């Protein structure tokens, strides 16, 4: 669709807002509707729109397939890693005993600007939703790449 100026211009205008909305849904999910999955899907749809209008090669330059493939696993790792972090940090709470549980974010409390930076449950939910968002964005994008990269079977 490279040759339609209206589509090109409108797409370029719209994509930043789609990305911004995805980030809003991701990071505002504690206050309003939204969360990692929704944000990831919206973010991926912006990438797919870009690929549709400007062609698959340009999309591959923006979001290289190799990077996206790795991000699929990185998201799940952030999620599970938050769980393990909460578990291992639990040790410092009580004298030498393992008090922390997997994905129990109460142990993520800290006293480093607690008014500004999220901590405890808030921090845990933030990290977990970030992991979900990254995985969903990457999965949706690579599925699209897999479909769009194939040629017609004769």
């Amino acid at each position: 669709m490279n040759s339609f100026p209206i589509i090109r211009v409108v797409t370029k205008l719209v994509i930043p807002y789609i990305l911004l909305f995805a980030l809003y849904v991701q990071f505002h999910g504690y206050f309003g509707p939204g969360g990692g999955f929704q944000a990831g899907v919206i973010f991926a749809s912006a990438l797919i729109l870009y690929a549709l209008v400007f062609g698959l090669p340009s999309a591959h330059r923006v979001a290289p397939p190799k990077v996206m493939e790795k991000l699929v696993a990185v998201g799940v790792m952030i999620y599970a890693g938050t769980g393990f972090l909460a578990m291992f940090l639990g040790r410092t709470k009580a004298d030498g005993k393992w008090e922390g549980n997997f994905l129990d974010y109460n142990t993520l409390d800290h006293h480093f600007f607690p008014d500004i930076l999220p901590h405890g449950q808030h921090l845990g939910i933030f990290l977990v939703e970030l992991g979900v968002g990254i995985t969903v964005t990457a999965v949706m994008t690579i599925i699209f790449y897999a479909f769009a990269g194939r040629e017609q079977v004769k």
Partner: protein
Amino acid sequence: MILIDIAVLTLLVATAFSITRIGDLWAAIMFTGIYSFLGASWMLLLDAPDVAFTEAAVGAGISTVLMLGTLALIGKPEKRTIKLPVVPLLVVVVTGSALFYGTLDMPLFDSPDAPIHMHPDPGYAEITERDIHGVPNFVTALLASYRGYDTLGETTVIFTAGIGVLLILRKPSENDDDEIENEESIS
């Protein structure tokens, strides 16, 4: 409000009928996109904006694009079958009546006694404020904290689905071709 409900539901049914009756696959895919948007509007009317987001982005956006991509590979016209589809009709009728029968036991819409409002304990809305500071939206709190395991499982499902699609559909690139040839020569 009830007028909007009726209008959206009527449009949903009309779109569904059009999808089944239309022969042109390209038009049918466009209709499924419309159907998803109507579904998103319906979710919004049911006060579920999260689900509406997801439906609009996945149903109307990404899956429509994926189906169009598939259509580009397989060709446009639908293959017409001449014989009367008795078995599919039977399956649809039986499943449909079973679903209708199931809805009879469901609580009325907006009923405050519905199980979904009674279990889990309605106190979740209250204990969220005590347990989880800084997260007023207790849907997010429930999904990410109280039911963190569930959401981890869901994320793993998405991860697995992505890997599966990648393994089945990925076009082998030049580097991979070399590796495959090497493996073949070894074996």
